[in-house]
Structure formats: C-alpha cells, structure tokens
C-alpha cells in the first residue's frame, strides 16, 4: 500500500544487547537525569508569603469607581449589563434627591448594582462599554472562594470603591 506520509517506520523487536541486559548503563543514565533535576531551579511560589506576579492588564474583581469628589460615577445606564455576554450584571436605577449631590455625580444613579461572580467570565466587556468610566476590573484582587452560592452575588456594599477618608481596610 502506498504510504500516506513518509513518517512510516518499520518496527522491529531486537534482542537486547549485553549492555541493555545488564541494566547498569541505563541506571547510570537515569541517575544522571534525576541529578540534573536535583539542581534545577524550582518553580514553586511560596503562596501565602509570595504571590505570583500578575500582568498589569489582569482582569480580577470588579470595582465601581468614584470621581475626584467622592461621588459615585455610575449612572445606571445599563450598557454594561447589555454588553455582558454572561448576563452577570443587574441593576435598578433611581433618581438623585436634593442634598445627595455629594453622593452621586449625576441625577440618575444605581440604587442596586449586582454582579454574579459565578456567572461572570471576567472578559472585561463591561469595562469597555461603560461611558462614564465607572466600572473597572482590578488587577490585584480576585473573587475568593466561598461556601454559599448567594455569597457570590456582589452588591454595591462590596463593589463600590471605599471613600478615601473612610478607608479603614
């Protein structure tokens, strides 16, 4: 039969030579290989003390930013929820009342804003869709493992950037 590729190889079973039957050359070779690994640099990252370095464009946990006066930037326009391919973002919009100018930058704001971290695929499309530069994926925080499903639904309490003056953590 015509071979389909020129990589066909005739397999033959030869008797072992004396050196092969004596095991010792093969053992010496094996010992050489393990000794080479003995002196190799280890890849281990000592996790709690060290963390693996992340890329500067790493997409981690979301944050809802405030402007320079400390007012929330989000206007609940819903573009992020539309852009989200995993449909992880939900929000309800509300109207700013008089006297809340320090809290919300524009007349409309998000009363609730939830990201379901079990659905989120951390693609960063919400970040790109946001016209107000309000939502970002941080490069230094991860959504940690938790025991209950509903703990993965992050509300505004965990998403909004803390105020600089009240920052305690």
């Amino acid at each position, binding site marked *: 039969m015509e071979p389909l590729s020129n990589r066909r190889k005739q397999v033959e079973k030869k008797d072992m030579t004396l050196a092969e039957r004596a095991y010792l050359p093969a*053992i010496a070779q*094996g*010992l050489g*290989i*393990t*000794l080479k*690994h*003995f002196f*190799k640099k*280890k*890849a*281990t990252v*000592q996790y709690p003390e060290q963390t693996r370095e992340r890329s500067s464009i790493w997409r981690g946990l979301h944050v809802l930013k405030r402007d320079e006066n400390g007012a929330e930037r989000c206007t609940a326009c819903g573009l992020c929820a539309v852009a989200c391919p995993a449909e992880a973002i939900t929000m309800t919009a509300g109207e700013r009342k008089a006297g809340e100018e320090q809290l919300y930058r524009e007349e409309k704001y998000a009363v609730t804003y939830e990201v379901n971290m079990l659905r989120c695929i951390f693609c960063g499309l919400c970040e790109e869709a946001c016209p107000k530069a309000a939502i970002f994926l941080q490069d230094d925080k991860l959504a940690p493992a938790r025991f209950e499903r509903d703990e993965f639904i992050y509300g505004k309490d965990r998403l909004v950037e803390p105020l600089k003056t009240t920052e305690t953590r």
Partner: protein
Amino acid sequence: MESVDLLYKAIYILVIFGITLLIATYSTYFERKIAAFIQDRVGPNRAGPAGLLQPLADAGKLFFKEDFIPARANKALFILGPGIAMLVATMSSAVIPYGDMLLVDGREIYLQAIEVNIGVLYIFGVVSLGVYGLMIGGWASNNKFSLLGAIRAASQNISYEIAMGLSLIAVLMMTGSLSLREIAAQQAGFNWNIWYQPLGFLIFLVCAFAETNRTPFDLPESEAELIGGYHTEYGSMKLGMYLFAEYINIFVASSVMATLYFGAYNFPFMFELEAWLVDATDSVVTANNIVTLLGVGFMFVKIFLFIFFFMWVRWTLPRFRYDQLMKLGWKILIPLAILNILLTGGGILLKDYLF
C-alpha cells in the same frame, strides 16, 4: 578493664547510639527533601527553618495516633515484632570502627564500641536477625496479606544474603581477617578495597539495597500497590518503629560499605598530613588526634554520600517485578559473586607467584 576505660566506652556507645538515632531521624527529612528536589519541588519547609523540625512533627503525629492491635492478633508477638526490628537495627553499629585511635592522657581510645575478631560475622548475624522482626510482625497480625508480605520480605532477604556473603568472602580473602578494625587499618591512605574489588562492591551494593528493602527491591513494603506488606496492620508508633528501623539499616549498610570498600576512616595523604602536623605542632599526640578526628569526619562524609545514593536511587528507579528480583538474586548475583571469588583467588596466587 579499668573504670576510666569503661567510662570512655560508655560515653562512646551513648554518643554512637545518639548519632545513629539522629541520622535515622533526619534521613526521613532528607528523603523527603531529596525526593522533592529530584521532582522539581521544594519539599517540607513549614516546620521550623527550612522544615528542619519536620521529623519531630512526624514523630509527634505518630505518637498521637491510635495504637491499634487487631482483635485476633497475637498480642505479645505483635508488640515484639517492631521491637526486634528496632533492637537489631541499632545493635549492628556496635562493631563498626568510626575512627582510628585517640590519645587522651596517655590512654589509647579506639573509636569503636566493641572490638571483636569476628566483626563481619557479627554484623551478618545481627542483620539476618532483622528478618525475624518482619516475619513475627507479619505473622502476629493474623492477616493473610500481612503474612504473604512477610514471606515475600523474608525470602527476598534470605536470597540476597547469600550473594552478599559470597561477595564479602573475596574481601576477607584479601585482608585475611574478620575484624572490621583490621580491615579498616589495612586500607590505610588511599589503598582502598574498592580498587581491588569493584565487582564485589557492585554485588554488595545491590544486595545492600535488597537487604534494607530499598527501592529497586522494596517489594516487602511497596506501599502504593501491595497494601504495605508485613506492616499492613500496624499503626501509630509501632509502624514508626518499623520505618525507623529501615532508616537505621540504611545508615548501618552505608557504614559497612564505607568500612569494607571505601577505606573507613582513611583518607588520601593522611600520613603526609600527620608527618607535617608532627613537624608543625611538635607533638605526636596532637598530630595523631587531629588526623583521627579528620578521619571520623571523612568516615561520616562517606556514610552520608552512601545514604544520599540510597535515596537518589530510590527516586530514580522503578521497582523490580518479583520474578525479576529472584532471577537477579539467584541466577546473576550468586554466580557473579562466585566468579569474583575465583578471580580474587587467582589474583592473590598470581601476586604471590610474581613477587
């Protein structure tokens, strides 16, 4: 014997006993470290600096586990098994000369616990008793798998003891003595037996691996696939004793190999060094003591290298199949050892004839 001599001996025996236990303890640590390094890992490094307290943590864990004796087991023998294994392992280091002679207050102190003129036989006798530890442990468990494991272990140890003894006879033919001190003394300087007995050493090394149940031949244990062998029913510190005895056996086997083939406490240029020291310090006693202590250092370096080799091989080679093990022992090593005896005898006769 004077009481001062007795005191020196007692101190020496205690020190050697302590060193044996210490080395066995830290062998477990270095085993794990070496395994990790060979597998590109880091190994235990949480308990104490660089994980140095890991053996203590392991021992603590073993002590606090339930000390379990199976209901239908023979209770006395079940306890006796690990005891014998441990006792026999620690006994065999008694005749090994870890160093030459120290001069203290005009007294000659040999760095050897007991000097017997049948030292080699003593070691062989005591090491073969170790099989009883395994056999009793396996039998007393009243478990057919333990018993099968024990039989497996016993037949392996007995098979390889023959080749080991035969490979040793060539050394005894050369030195003409069974005393380990005498054998060590004859290898003064760089005149080591390994230069005359490479084949004998190779056979002895392979048999030592089999005798200590180390990896290419660790069928008695084969912890992953043959449910532990003779110590299947053991737990807590009794299991710890068995494992500990294995590490002591490695230490003893390493010291025996260093003594018989690698010149024990002798090192190259020791006489030149001693002559130079006599000139430099103007005292024969100081020069002798310095060289002796250096010799002890060299002895332990050789032992550590052998222990490292044991572990290095363990993490390199897979296990032999049982029929391969028996074939290697009976059909290859024993004929090779007999050939080695013939070659040695011929060599000795040739030397007498020529010179």
